[in-house]
């Protein structure tokens, strides 16, 4: 069998690149790295950018399809792969290559875990403000490539605002650099932005140079409970239109609140302020006054309430909805209907100041795909989207994970993908529009 011969030969080549102990071919390892039920032929665990480059070179030459992988937490994002031969587990690229506290900049391997990094940066009084739900164990490369965000986005932006420079491996194995190692640079095209949220389809991120921020000296969190979604809406609008400067605003529906262990009191907003102690106190007091004016019940909340939001978003189906900031409550209510046909109680957590809603469903029914399609149609006029981040194979089989992209912009995306990965080596088929 020529395929078998070829597989044996390729296994030798790949093992030579990463070392036999880091090339996994046993069924358990391969099944463990399956993407949408499709197991790769190999799982390679490269040690550095050079090995990633050589693996991709082999793939490029031999027509193999490669899927980069971080912690595996978001492997469900995207359409089922068109082809899949090699999963590249990047968790060995976990070095902090450089941390210059006085510059508030760090360069780290793509496989570095957020919790490990946080320990290092905290020691210098700094932080990398990327806080996607359940993200502590996730890798920097994975968080960037999947465009994941969390409540800190409100003050600090997303990966696109924090990624100053990026080293990536192109589809032909060429190691490439974009951006700079300083906090301000406009030298040439802003290539790092292309790597954020691209799911590794334009290049495999191997190292990231990131802007860090000072860790606030003091922080406080408050839970504001509302009698109705309308009250939540007016409070959030008033908060955004005030001189109060929260660093996080999360709006939760009744289901999410309960699952996060924040009580049974219906809709609520979890708001935190990070600053010096005096400002936390005065801004917190201003927040309480604002809450009172909007008939909200305001109470202090522990810092642990934030990671608990991640629990509210666990489940077999997860959506990420983008909408106008002013429409967040409207869409949270619409999303609440997705559970009506028996798909299980929905649970929604919104980055309310940024127009992002994360939704978890207890399951999918025969009607879920149509419901998501209708939701997308309704979101389209304002430029909104509903991305399926996680779903059972049955749901994904009949539903595009990303939804339609605007045709004009998509034509450019398609040209870009063809230009930089004409053979479809990197995650073929998984991205928007099947790119």
């Amino acid at each position, binding site marked *: 069998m020529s395929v078998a011969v070829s597989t044996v030969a390729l296994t030798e080549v790949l093992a030579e690149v990463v070392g036999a102990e880091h090339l996994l071919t046993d069924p358990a390892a391969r099944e463990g790295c399956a993407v949408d039920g499709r197991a790769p032929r190999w799982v390679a665990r490269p040690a550095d950018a050079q090995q990633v480059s050589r693996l991709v070179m082999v793939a490029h030459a031999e027509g193999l399809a490669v899927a980069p992988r971080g912690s595996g937490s978001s492997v469900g994002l995207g359409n089922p792969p068109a082809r899949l031969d090699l999963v590249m587990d990047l968790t060995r690229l976990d070095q902090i290559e450089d941390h210059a506290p006085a510059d508030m900049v760090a360069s780290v391997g793509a496989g570095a875990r957020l919790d490990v990094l946080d320990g290092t940066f905290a020691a210098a009084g700094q932080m990398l403000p990327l806080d996607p739900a359940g993200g502590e164990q996730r890798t920097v490369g994975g968080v960037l490539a999947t465009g994941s965000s969390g409540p800190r986005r409100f003050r600090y932006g997303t990966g696109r605002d924090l990624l100053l420079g990026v080293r990536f491996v192109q589809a032909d194995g060429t190691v490439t650099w974009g951006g700079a190692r*300083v906090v301000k640079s*406009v030298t040439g095209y802003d290539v790092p932005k292309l790597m954020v*949220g691209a799911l590794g389809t334009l290049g495999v991120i191997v190292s990231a140079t990131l802007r860090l921020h000072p860790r606030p000296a003091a922080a406080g969190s408050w839970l504001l409970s509302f009698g109705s979604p309308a009250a939540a809406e007016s409070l959030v609008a008033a908060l955004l239109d005030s001189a109060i400067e929260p660093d996080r605003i999360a709006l939760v529906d009744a289901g999410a609140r309960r699952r996060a262990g924040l009580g049974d009191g219906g809709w609520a907003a979890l708001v935190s302020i990070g*600053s*010096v102690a*005096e*400002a936390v106190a005065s801004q917190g007091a201003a927040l309480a006054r604002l809450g009172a004016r909007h008939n909200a019940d305001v109470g202090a909340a522990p810092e642990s309430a934030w990671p608990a939001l991640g629990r509210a978003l666990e489940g077999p189906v997860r959506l990420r909805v*983008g909408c106008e900031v002013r429409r967040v409550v409207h869409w949270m209510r619409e999303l609440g209907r997705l559970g009506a046909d028996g798909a299980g109680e929905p649970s929604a957590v919104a980055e309310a100041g940024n127009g992002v809603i994360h939704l978890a469903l207890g399951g999918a029914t025969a009607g879920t795909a149509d419901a998501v399609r209708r939701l997308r149609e309704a979101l389209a006029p304002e430029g909104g989207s509903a991305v399926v981040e996680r779903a059972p194979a049955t749901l994904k089989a009949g539903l595009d994970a990303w939804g339609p992209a605007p045709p004009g912009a998509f034509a*450019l995306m398609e040209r870009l993908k063809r230009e930089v990965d004409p053979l479809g080596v990197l995650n073929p088929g998984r991205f928007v529009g099947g790119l």
Partner: protein
Amino acid sequence: MPLTAAFLAELGGIVGPDALIATPEGRLAYEADMHVFYRGMPDAVVLPSTAAQVVAVVRLCRREAVPVVPRGSGTGIIGGAMAPTGGVTVSMNRMNRILELDFRNRCAVVEPGLINLWLSNATRPHGYYFAPDPSSQMVSSIGGNTGTNAGGPHCLKYGITTNHVLGVQVVTGAGELVWLGGKVQERPGYDLTGVTVGSEGTLGLVTAVAVRLLHEPEAVKTLLASFPTLDDASETVSAIIAAGIVPSALEIIDEFFVRAIEEGVGAGYPKGAGAVLLIELDGPREEIEAQAHRIVPLCREHGALEIRVARDEAERALLWKGRKEAAGVVGRMSPNWLLQDAVVPRSRLPEIMRRMQAIAARHGIRIANVFHAGDGNLHPMVLYDDRVPGELERARAANDELLRECLALGGSVTGEHGVGLDKAEAMPLQYEPADLAFMARLRRCFDPDGVMNPGKLLPDHPACGEGFRQRLPELPPGAWV
């Protein structure tokens, strides 16, 4: 490359006769931006008033292989909005409307010719502002700011233009009209908005911009500290940043400028100061008070001669006056100068300033500085007199050496002005051939035939058409740093 009568007629048909400039004296005003070295007159200038006209112009130029040069207010300083190989300059000044103010979504949609400051003037009564504030903001356009990814003093805390652009409507070099991004921040797909910002008109022509608006802070506090030496001021900047404080602005004005500003506009800077450090804090009142309480001793520890704190808006304006007038007084120091805006890691600021003095001494020229110290973004002005034989050459050598020193410290070629024609050949100092090849591929996707602003941003393009001028004209009436 003179345009044919038929081409001009077609061009005039698209934009209307009052929006076409074809006479040599009319075109002359468009032969340069604020970088006086680079001259290149377009063969025609159009002033479109709609995106549809822009589409038609780009399609016509593409069909006839005529270069398209986008231009805002022409205040750039990189040889960007000029036509080295001729072609059609598309001046966006007439497309200057605010299309929508949407405070509930904290954003605005504007046409590219809108003057930067006009947007904040329109939004401040509602408690909002547009954060990017290049020193040229009273004349530069938001489209130009988007094209160059402009910065400004307050970018230290709030980021540069790209952090404030949510979407762009763009006419690509292929003549397509597309919206990339928009009011909704979360969108699947490649971040093409992110690469369009800062692309200097080489990917397409921006015809509308959706920008983020920020809420006005509760309070602002402005301090001015003077120091015996530039070194002391630089060390103070590094100490403030290292203390975990991110002021909204941290500006250094060196001795040359302090003297010229005092002679020129009299900002009341202390006599004998070797450097002045302007510090602005904004945010919750208690926060900035606490930060000021930490900053003042840091200034003292580094030898501050005097520290002033503005007590009201009038005093604040006075403290800023010298900084804002800096460019206007440069003529007092020198008939000619070269300006660059390389960046160093901010902790290396004292080191690069020392090296800069050594470079100046070695080449026998003076280098004056007024710059965004907090993010390591230098703005050295290499002073020379082009009537003195050899001075320009020495100035250029010093400028070049300084750029290389910045990169050797791990810096960047340009922090906010952009690449344009001026720094295209310096790109290989920061990027390997593979990195540049990737950028070239990106460019091809938007502009397959290379009609958009050719010669800019990437190296290996034909150099400036009308050539580098040894003999320089008078200084421009104003230039912004």
